[in-house]
């Protein structure tokens, strides 16, 4: 990322990290993308309710700052592995919403040609190696990608996103240990939204903070407020620098909250309305970022309106694109099981 010019940097000396690090245009782009994630998921939810999308989906509404902050210092070549709650990661890493919608509609123009759907959304071209239907499934894969980067000397770093629930899978522990002993360029990002489905971290996890588990694998464990874009981006920035320098992995715990239920069939019986309401009205990551941008003079109300309008247009166009796209031919059911060879 290009740094803001020296003069501008000085005038921002007392501002939080991202306002010193990035240009106004870049920061407005971040706001655009945070809205894009939110409206994409709202759009997908509405299409689901109207029966245009089938299956189920896991919405990350409320977690946008986490996805954006972590991906901020990543280059296009850097890679991520994502989760069942992966729409935000996918957009943050550079995916086009029209091809994501097309995937959700099961169309050939979708990122997975209609084979994967929401739970397997990916954008390999932009370095997103895929969401995952298996909790914790992507963590060792990220370590493998980091091993490739090291062996092939590509200079890439790899981010593995996962939830608080995933940190109780064996795969998490085995993967962190290997990343540490081989000093691999990988960043483990635990998006702790307080619950794995209905089970709170207090009931599922022996440590209070998941970042504490980093100590067991001799890597830095960092806790950030996942709803504050600047905090997340700063931690990611440091972890990326460490990984690129060959110093090994970092575990970042990004504390956040999902506003929606776990999936489309959640009755929210394990948490209170007040708790949800509190996070929605007082700690919404987009509202928080927007007011900082306004306060520090990076954007005004007109600018925000313009972003919202442009996002709405991109979403509407994306849904139209998906609707107009062709469905796969049922005779092609056997495609992609093995690599086609000439």
């Amino acid at each position, binding site marked *: 990322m290009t740094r803001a010019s020296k003069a501008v940097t000085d005038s921002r000396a007392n501002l939080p990290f991202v306002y010193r690090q990035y240009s106004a245009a870049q920061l407005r782009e971040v706001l655009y993308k945070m809205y894009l994630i939110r409206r994409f998921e709202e759009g997908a939810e509405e299409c689901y309710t109207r029966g245009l999308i089938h299956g189920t989906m896991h919405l990350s509404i409320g977690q946008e700052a986490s996805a954006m902050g972590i991906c901020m210092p990543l280059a296009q070549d850097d890679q991520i592995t994502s989760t069942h709650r992966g729409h935000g990661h996918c957009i943050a890493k550079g995916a086009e919403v029209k091809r994501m919608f097309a995937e959700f509609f099961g169309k050939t123009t979708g990122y997975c040609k209609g084979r994967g759907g929401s*739970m397997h959304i990916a954008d390999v071209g932009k370095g997103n190696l895929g969401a995952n239907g298996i909790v914790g499934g992507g963590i060792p894969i990220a370590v493998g990608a980091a091993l490739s980067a090291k062996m092939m000397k590509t200079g890439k770093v790899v981010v593995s996103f996962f939830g608080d629930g995933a940190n109780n899978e064996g795969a998490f522990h085995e993967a962190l240990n290997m990343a540490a002993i081989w000093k691999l360029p990988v960043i483990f990002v635990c998006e702790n939204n307080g619950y794995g489905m209905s089970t709170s971290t207090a009931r599922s996890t022996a440590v209070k903070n998941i970042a504490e588990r980093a100590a067991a694998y001799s890597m830095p464990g960092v806790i950030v407020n996942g709803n504050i874009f600047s905090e997340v981006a700063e931690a990611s920035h440091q972890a990326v620098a460490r990984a690129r320098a060959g110093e090994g992995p970092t575990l970042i715990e990004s504390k956040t909250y999902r506003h929606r239920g776990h999936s489309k069939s959640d009755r929210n019986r*394990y948490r209170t309305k007040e708790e949800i309401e509190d996070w929605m009205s007082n700690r919404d990551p987009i509202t928080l970022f927007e007011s900082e941008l306004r306060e520090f003079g990076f954007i005004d109300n007109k600018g925000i309106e313009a972003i919202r309008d442009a996002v709405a247009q991109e979403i509407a166009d994306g849904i139209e694109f998906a609707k107009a796209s062709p469905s796969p031919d049922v005779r092609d*059911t056997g495609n992609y099981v093995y690599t086609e060879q000439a």
Partner: protein
Amino acid sequence: MDAMVRELSYAQAIQEAMAIAMDMDERVFLMGEDIGVYGGAFQVTGDLVERFGTERVIDTPISELGGAGVAVGAALTGMRPIFEFQFSDFATLAMEQIVNQAAKIRFMLGGEVSVPVVMRFPAGSGTGAAAQHSQSLEAWLGHVPGLKVIQPATPYDAKGMLLAAVADPDPVMIFEHKLLYKMKGPVPEGYYTVPIGKADIRREGRDLTVVATSIMVQKALDAAVVLEAEGIDVEVVDLRTIRPMDKQTVIDSVKKTSRLMCVYEAVKTLGIGAEVSAMIAESEAFDYLDAPIVRLGGAETPIPYNPELEKATVPQIPDIITAARDLVRGAR
């Protein structure tokens, strides 16, 4: 006096069986992910936590290997756990404890112990959940001596076979098709068991034996109605248990009809159809066959997300009708 019979869904029948087992025997308890206040991903445990408390309806962390192993250890030492996998696909994470431990401990220790664990696996496709949440892996476990593997196809059997599984001294794996959970059927109140290892002739017929499992039983019965109108009389055998398999019922049926078709959702090759076919080929029923055996199974592909593709990967009623017609009329 006969027990009162009500219409229950398959899920309700399982829940009732678990409640009865827990009422009857203090050693019975439930473990699984989100089976407490959430009620289970498919609402099978429902409100049981309110009745039996969190000591006996235990939400585990998302730790399938460890969780299944804890259930095995508890079973080994006197308890009677019923362990729910949230989706049967996650059995893959627990294979070590299921295959190397639960199935073999009794044998390896020369019969000194047994492992009376019950594991439940919501299985199958049809929900748009894509490749990692739609598999039918029962034949994997059916390949392991030491395990018993059942696939009840009706609410009645779901309750009776679960109660039989809890009473069984050895590990019993129950594969429950997710699309069956809402299916309704008559279920008597109170305790009864349906034996593990016994197939059920769900419809008698002269022209063709269809051996089906799980959700394919109902599809075969529906196909049989259409075929009857065309003068093809189908016998539908619900296998119910895939290990140990009830060979005699299938052999006797084939001897009567002289034709065999196997219908199951799992990937066609190297599965239940291969086993049933080979078993018939090895038996006295072989000489009675008037036509080659037919297998209708899942396509050789992971389950796709797109709904039309998803349907095309598993046998549907029209596929059964066409295949049966060809088989009986000699098109094959």
